């Protein structure tokens, strides 16, 4: 293609967009709305998946030392466990820490523990996290070799539950995301098809006066991508601005700090990128397949 012709096609695309103002508006706003729904979902999905990961981090092995171990024993065991490549983190929990935690968990009913402070029956312990939460059981089994450790547990039932849920949530979000992306692609390309359908006579005339198929396609192709870009700007902006607002509200209001949300960066980049690319790809693709229908005359 000559560079002259490429300029011509671009000029043509812009002219057509500006002359068919109403249709340009209808098409790009439909793209915008569709991508807005998709963008919101993306933000939601990224956060859900993040929360699931956070949830996985709760899974850990608790190990308890024999009552008579020395501080040296403890240090030694910790050092050795840390060498295991499967281990992500090791934390020492003294018997005092253990009691404090227990009281906190118990909340207001802690009065019941009051007497225990003097003769604290809890042993010292460790909280060990595996790099891959799915391998927590293996990690727990590997602790058998330490004679200093009397007892250990990784909360079998609860752990399996957590791991099950977080995987389930991730899969569900992924399937929904894929489904939504397909539906969004359908909606956008459908809208573009309708705008091209309204101009099918034009395409036929172009063929009749000797324009080759590619000569006819190019301006539509460029138009499609412009509509895609136009339709991606607004939803990206809206999604990110409102997410920022939600983050602000949650941060200001300590009560809801249970929700741990992803920070603006790099989430904003992902959402903007995915939305825009989806908009352009589908815009171009929608134009291409619909123009082809009318290149038959």
């Amino acid at each position, binding site marked *: 293609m000559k560079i*002259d012709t490429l300029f011509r096609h671009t000029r043509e695309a812009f002219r057509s967009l500006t002359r068919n103002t109403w249709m340009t508006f209808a098409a790009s706003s439909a793209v915008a709305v569709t991508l807005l729904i998709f963008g919101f979902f993306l933000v939601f999905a990224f956060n859900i998946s993040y929360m699931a990961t956070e949830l996985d981090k709760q899974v850990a092995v608790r190990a308890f030392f024999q009552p008579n171990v020395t501080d040296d024993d403890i240090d030694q065991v910790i050092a050795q466990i840390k060498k295991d490549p499967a281990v992500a983190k090791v934390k020492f929990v003294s018997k005092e820490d253990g009691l404090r935690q227990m009281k906190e968990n118990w909340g207001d009913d802690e009065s019941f523990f009051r007497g225990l402070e003097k003769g604290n029956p809890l042993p010292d312990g460790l909280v060990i996290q595996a790099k891959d939460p799915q391998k927590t059981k293996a990690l727990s089994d590997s602790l058998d070799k330490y004679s200093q450790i009397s007892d250990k547990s990784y909360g079998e039932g609860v752990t399996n539950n957590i791991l099950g849920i977080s995987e389930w949530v991730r899969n569900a979000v992924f399937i929904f995301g894929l489904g939504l992306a397909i539906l969004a692609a359908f909606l956008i390309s459908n809208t573009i098809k309708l705008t091209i359908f309204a101009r099918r006579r*034009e395409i036929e005339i*172009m063929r*009749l*006066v*000797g324009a*080759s*198929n590619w000569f006819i396609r190019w301006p539509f192709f460029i138009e499609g991508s412009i509509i895609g870009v136009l339709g991606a700007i607004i939803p990206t902006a809206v999604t990110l601005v409102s997410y920022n607002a939600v983050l602000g509200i949650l941060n200001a209001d300590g009560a809801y700090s249970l929700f741990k949300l992803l920070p603006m960066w790099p989430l904003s980049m992902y959402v903007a990128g995915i939305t825009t690319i989806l908009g352009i790809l589908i815009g171009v693709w929608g134009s291409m397949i619909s123009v082809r229908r009318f290149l038959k005359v």
Partner: protein
Amino acid sequence: MIEMHDVYKVYGNGVKALNGINVKIDQSEFVYVVGPSGAGKSTFIKLMYREEKPTHGVILINGVNVKRVRNWKIPYLRRNIGVVFQDYKLLPNMTAYENVAFAMEAVETPHRKIRRRVQEMLELVGLYDRMNALPSQLSGGEQQRVSIARAMVNNPGFLIADEPTGNLDPENSWDIMYLLEEINARGTTVVMATHNKEIVNTMRKRVIAVEQGVIVRDEQQGEYGYED
């Protein structure tokens, strides 16, 4: 050269528009196609630039079997054929200038040549000052003249015109006819369907009369032949 051998055209809904056409039109000929409304003139013409495919028979344009041309190659075939459509077929979102220029852009004419040539053509059909009007802002006859300018702008080897003076006053009609005669004199084959008795009887070219899908008359220097 245009050749048709035993050509039939039956439309999808069963209408038999052409029933066995055999004809040969030489390079640089000037041919009138006449006949009553619905006789099959436009169908006859549409077969030449492949807007319609024959149901049966062979059509050769400069030796190429039109029926066999692959879909994507058809535009290249059409580039040597300028067509004035009975219903004009102007692009509604383009001005008169842009409509004519489009035909030149489509064959990738260099930008600087287009401007001069298009303006020249619009001047010839008397529309230089209506250049920037959209088709919807033009009168019927003006649209028809834009269509004529577009058909001629690429100096095609064949010029096929379906009723090109239907919406023109006699003066404009004659101007167009002189234009066609001149183009024909320079070597372009001209095929023109018309109802205009006066023009046919005055210009005295070959006349092919079609009735109910068959050629009933084919005379060199013929007459319109349908009396009032």
